[in-house]
């Protein structure tokens, strides 16, 4: 008999009204991803010199891409996954509490998405960080852009409130003495979403009022944006490691060997580390006190502590269980994982991309390098390892599990889907590798045409061509994923069977592990540190060779 996991059985047992809600959240996420991918491809191809976009059209494409992905794909997906985890792992019989609030939240987020797209399409495209000075004068289009973000914040507040109610209500009913680990993490995640909604209001409300002509230009926009931006960094990563935690158990049957209490503490670490590590976003502010720079540098070292800790918990748990099942050699256990399952393949590559993106991010947040690299193509070069290679692949892995359980339709061609992370990562390696090298060599960020009428070094244009080619490969992988997931949401063709061929899984959880070695996790951390040092040394060597003087501009 096929053994299922709580995730799949819980999703199937949810009330139909909750299934409709979850499918709607995830459909909205996929729509935002589709818009973002199409405009991202246009931007990458224009940067590579493969298509020509005028300055305004280019900025519109870049803004639509960034707004759709960074704000809407990532947060529609989080809204859906938060409700999935909150309800399935807490009390799927009762379903989502405050369902109407969740629907209201989704409606507000959709209205926000429409307003943001209108703002970008009809007015001066503000890029995703929307600095008011870029808009110059108040206008309805600018008002729509800021109103979009405020509606998104209001929507997230409502969805997060429903998520919290869903995780806490079973405690009050006496169904649990303590929250299950995933419910606790979902509750903490929902709390951080509410804080981020507050941060969004703090950042965007003054600008929205200015754009509507109701007050003067905001004086402290950059500070408000940095606080929000810091939260927006952390939330998708927190969601990512929670998805890993859930999917690893679904794919292998392995629970944390360190116990539920420790897992909860690790997830709570995200909350503890969010505020103190935020100072590095201010490094480019010219008036920042030297003491704050020093404190920010020291505290930034802690930014990856929660993610690395969750990684160690998951990898150590997997390794000791695999060894108890006969895994040999230092890395033999990795080959025993169910790689033919497309979700496993996606989260496996997500881990590799996180190591690369994480190591590069440590280069950027060093106080002495932040000013030199923040306005270069280094930034999109490194952060696509995180947004596409880590978070998007992880969220897609979750959808590959969640959607078939919700729709009752089998996944389209898993044997094709399992190769897509390879394709996406190959594209990412070209895009990110060339992008980071371009950044080290001074190629500016947010400039579509970098030849400067032949005055720029020839290598700049060559590197941008590689960036464009990498972007095309990433786009191809994501479009195939989108086809598979959207097809699963829609009843295409003849009525599908209730369950297709089961996806490959292993079941390692039932065996006593005894005393086993687990060196892969610590070894991976050593490699991460080594990569950071190597990328930093490379940065200094390449920039020392530049025949130009570099200076700080606006913050990243």
């Amino acid at each position, binding site marked *: 008999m096929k053994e299922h996991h709580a995730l799949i059985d819980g999703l199937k047992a949810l009330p139909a009204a909750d299934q409709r809600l979850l499918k709607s959240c995830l459909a909205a996420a996929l729509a935002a991803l589709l818009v973002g991918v199409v405009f991202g491809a246009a931007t990458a191809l224009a940067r590579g010199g493969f298509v020509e976009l005028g300055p305004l059209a280019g900025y519109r494409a870049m803004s639509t891409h960034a707004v759709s992905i960074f704000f809407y794909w990532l947060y529609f997906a989080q809204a859906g996954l938060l409700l999935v985890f909150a309800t399935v792992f807490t009390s799927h019989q009762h379903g989502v509490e405050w369902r109407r609030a969740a629907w209201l939240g989704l409606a507000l987020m959709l209205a926000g998405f429409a307003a943001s797209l209108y703002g970008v399409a009809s007015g001066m495209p503000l890029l995703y960080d929307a600095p008011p000075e870029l808009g110059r004068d108040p206008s309805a289009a600018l008002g729509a852009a800021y109103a979009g973000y405020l509606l998104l914040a209001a929507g997230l507040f409502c969805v997060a409130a429903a998520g919290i109610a869903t995780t806490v209500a079973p405690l009050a009913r006496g169904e649990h003495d303590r929250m299950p680990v995933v419910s606790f993490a979902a509750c903490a995640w929902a709390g951080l979403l509410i804080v981020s909604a507050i941060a969004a209001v703090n950042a965007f409300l003054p600008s929205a009022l200015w754009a509507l002509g109701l007050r003067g230009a905001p004086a402290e926009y950059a500070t408000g944006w940095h606080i929000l931006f810091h939260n927006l960094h952390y939330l998708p990563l927190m969601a990512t490691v929670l998805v890993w935690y859930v999917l690893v158990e679904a794919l292998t049957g392995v629970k944390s060997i360190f116990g539920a209490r420790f897992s909860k503490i690790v997830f709570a670490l995200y909350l503890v580390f969010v*505020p103190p590590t935020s100072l590095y976003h201010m490094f480019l502010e010219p008036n920042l006190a030297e003491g704050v720079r020093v404190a920010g540098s020291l505290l930034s070292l802690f930014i990856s502590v929660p993610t690395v800790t969750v990684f160690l918990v998951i990898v150590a748990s997997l390794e000791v269980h695999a060894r108890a099942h006969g895994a040999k050699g230092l890395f033999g256990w990795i080959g025993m994982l169910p790689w033919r399952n497309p979700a496993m393949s996606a989260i496996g590559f997500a881990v590799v991309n996180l190591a690369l993106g994480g190591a590069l991010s440590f280069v950027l947040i060093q106080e002495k390098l932040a000013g030199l690299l923040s306005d270069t193509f280094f930034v999109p070069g490194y952060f696509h390892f995180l947004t596409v290679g880590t978070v998007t692949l992880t969220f897609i892995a979750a959808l590959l599990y969640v959607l078939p359980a919700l729709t009752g339709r089998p996944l389209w061609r898993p044997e094709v889907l399992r190769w897509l992370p390879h394709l996406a990562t190959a594209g990412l390696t070209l895009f990110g590798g060339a992008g980071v090298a371009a950044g080290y060599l001074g190629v500016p960020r947010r400039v579509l045409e970098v030849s400067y009428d032949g005055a720029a070094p020839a290598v700049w244009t060559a590197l941008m061509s590689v960036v464009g080619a990498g972007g095309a490969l990433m786009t191809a992988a994501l479009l195939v994923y989108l086809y598979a997931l959207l097809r699963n949401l829609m009843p295409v063709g003849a009525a599908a069977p209730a369950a297709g061929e089961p996806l490959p899984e292993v079941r390692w959880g039932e065996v006593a592990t005894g005393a086993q070695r687990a060196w892969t996790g610590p070894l991976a951390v050593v490699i991460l540190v080594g990569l950071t040092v190597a990328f930093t040394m490379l940065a200094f060597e390449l920039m020392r060779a530049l025949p130009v003087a570099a200076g700080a501009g606006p913050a990243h």
Partner: protein
Amino acid sequence: MHSDAVTFAVVFAVWLALAVTYATVPMFAMPGYAVVWGWGSLVFLGLAALTALAVRRAKHRRRHMERPHP
């Protein structure tokens, strides 16, 4: 006290301490940071209180149901 509530209370304490630091220490004087982390600390205080109250309510209900009825 309930361990989940205690964990959220610890988060509240850390955020509140930072909010106070940003509001009062001249070197860090960043009112925007103080506002967001301050409101955030209240969110986690709310979660701690909500969790503790939910558990207390369940205990109360359990005691009520276990009480022998004449």
